[in-house]
């Protein structure tokens, strides 16, 4: 088990190196760079010398190979460089916003799991009743409703019902939990809906599948209480695939946050990413891409490991 884990961990290295190489060269294909956006973005005339000087300061005038080596060496020593726009270390730019985004992501996961598992289970057990139909409609809708639109609807709802909008300045959870939750619960709900829909659909279909298994029939035949048949025999097996989806969706939550943070005016990772893209801030884009990809790859790995822990049939060598 440990050997398998280490092996898998080593296998992520080539993928991440591939990401690093790809993102570096893909970004350098762009005509124009951060200097132009920064100095000429507002349409003002700026002398060519000023532009060249700024390029020189940021190291953009050096040969591509040299820049690439710097980037890779930096990565190997876990140094992501400094933002070309703000001159602050990339790590700091990300760190100051990570707390907020991570909290929204975790809350969205909680919302999703707490809603999805009971919903999916109820739909599977009461198959083809009105409860099942309601769950199916609600979950199919969840895949169609864009999270940023749902966020806007929530805002409209809050505004018309209570004439109140969530605060826009971030208060850390440990400082003032009430103010913190008042701000972040709404975006968590907006991104959590889709998440819940995906998980609930999976729980429903995998529970339906498990309920057809021979061992469920055996359990029922020997007179095990239905509650135990479902709780102990069926649900435990049905939830396994759900773990995978919960994990993968969590890793991809940043995708939902990119747009939703804009709606709620949250200063998080997603907003930072959009900003860095529209500013051509290469170092910051590279750093964030690496962070997102590593996070995804690691969550993926963790999910596989959890799978082996929960399902003794899957034991690797």
């Amino acid at each position, binding site marked *: 088990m440990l050997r398998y884990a280490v092996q898998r961990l080593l296998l992520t290295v080539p993928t991440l190196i591939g990401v690093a190489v790809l993102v570096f060269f*893909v970004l350098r294909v762009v005509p124009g760079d951060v200097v132009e956006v920064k100095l000429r973005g507002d349409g003002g005339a700026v002398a060519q010398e000023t532009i060249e000087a700024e390029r020189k300061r940021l190291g953009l005038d050096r040969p591509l190979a040299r820049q690439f080596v710097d980037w890779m060496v930096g990565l190997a020593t876990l140094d992501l460089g400094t933002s070309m726009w703000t001159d602050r270390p990339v790590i700091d730019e990300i760190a100051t916003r990570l707390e907020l985004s991570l909290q929204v992501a975790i809350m969205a996961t909680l919302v999703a799991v707490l809603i999805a598992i009971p919903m999916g289970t109820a739909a599977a057990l009461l198959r083809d009743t009105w409860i099942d139909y309601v769950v199916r409609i609600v979950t*199919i809708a969840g*895949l169609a409703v864009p999270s940023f*639109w749902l966020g806007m609807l929530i805002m409209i709802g809050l505004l018309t019902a209570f004439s109140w909008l969530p605060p826009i300045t971030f208060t850390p959870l440990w400082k003032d939990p009430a103010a913190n939750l008042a701000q972040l619960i709404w975006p968590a709900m907006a991104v959590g809906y889709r998440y819940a829909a995906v998980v609930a659909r999976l729980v429903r279909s995998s529970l339906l599948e498990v309920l057809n298994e021979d061992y469920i029939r055996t359990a029922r035949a020997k007179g095990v209480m239905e509650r135990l048949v479902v709780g102990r025999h069926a649900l435990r097996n049905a939830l396994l695939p759900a773990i995978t989806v919960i994990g993968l969706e969590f890793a991809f939550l940043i995708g939902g946050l*990119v*747009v939703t943070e804009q709606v709620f005016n949250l200063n998080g990772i997603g907003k930072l*990413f959009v900003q860095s893209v529209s500013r051509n801030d290469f170092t910051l884009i590279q750093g964030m891409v690496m962070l997102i990809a590593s996070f995804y790859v690691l969550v993926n790995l963790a999910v596989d490991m959890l799978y082996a822990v929960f399902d003794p049939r899957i034991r690797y060598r």
Partner: protein
Amino acid sequence: MIAFCRAQPLGAVSLAVILVMMLGGVFAPWVAPYDPLAIDFAAVLARPSWAHWFGTDGYGRDILSRVIHGARTALVIGFVSSFLGSSVGALLGAASAYFGGKIDDAIQRLVDILLAFPIIVLALVVVAVLGKAVVLWIDANLIVAIAIPIVPKVARVVRAAALSVRAMPYIDAARAGGYSHLRIIFRHMAPNLAAPYLIMLTAYIAQAILLEASLSFLGLGVSEPTPAWGLMLSGNAADFYGEAPWMIIFPGLAISLAVFAFNLAGDALRDWLDPKFKT
């Protein structure tokens, strides 16, 4: 067609919705009550009424007309990018399975790398790299940006299906017959990969529409004054939540309905073409 509608009633409903949207999009100039770009300062932020069913926006433009014209943008971008992404993905998947060995390894590594990103992150990077290149009224680079995240997903699924096709005796027969690789892939393997390809193509139209809406909302997709649903939700729509919620509600409903219809159509097609996956 009739058999499909009978076997998949939900699929039939979704097809009907898609058809209505397509007709609305194609005939938008005749169906829409107003010019979607016509500014009318006498009717700024008008609430829904008989004159303006869905109300008007901050420039007095008719929202119903913009939603109808927006269907054009959404469907063209959705269909073209899903077609592009699925086709390239299917080709890569089929080639990967057919050639095996080093080519397979190389393609799979690339797929792994591309899969390590949420689709919107990937699309944003591509948008940043390519900039804008407007052909007719559609941004060709936006289509590429939306198509690229679809490629690895389709490649992976088609590769799995192609592996089993590859093992069929008729492929060996074709190779023994001395046909070229291209001919074998297109004439002998492709027809047997049509089912997964069509299913993915339909399902990813929904994804593409959603992605286009998100990018346009962020200001990195379709640009003003082209009517596009995502774009209609940004800008001054966001400033007037309270006063003019209709600016938010109707374009969002249009996005949801389109994505919903294509998702359902994809599901129905899957159940119909591939009964194995039925739940």
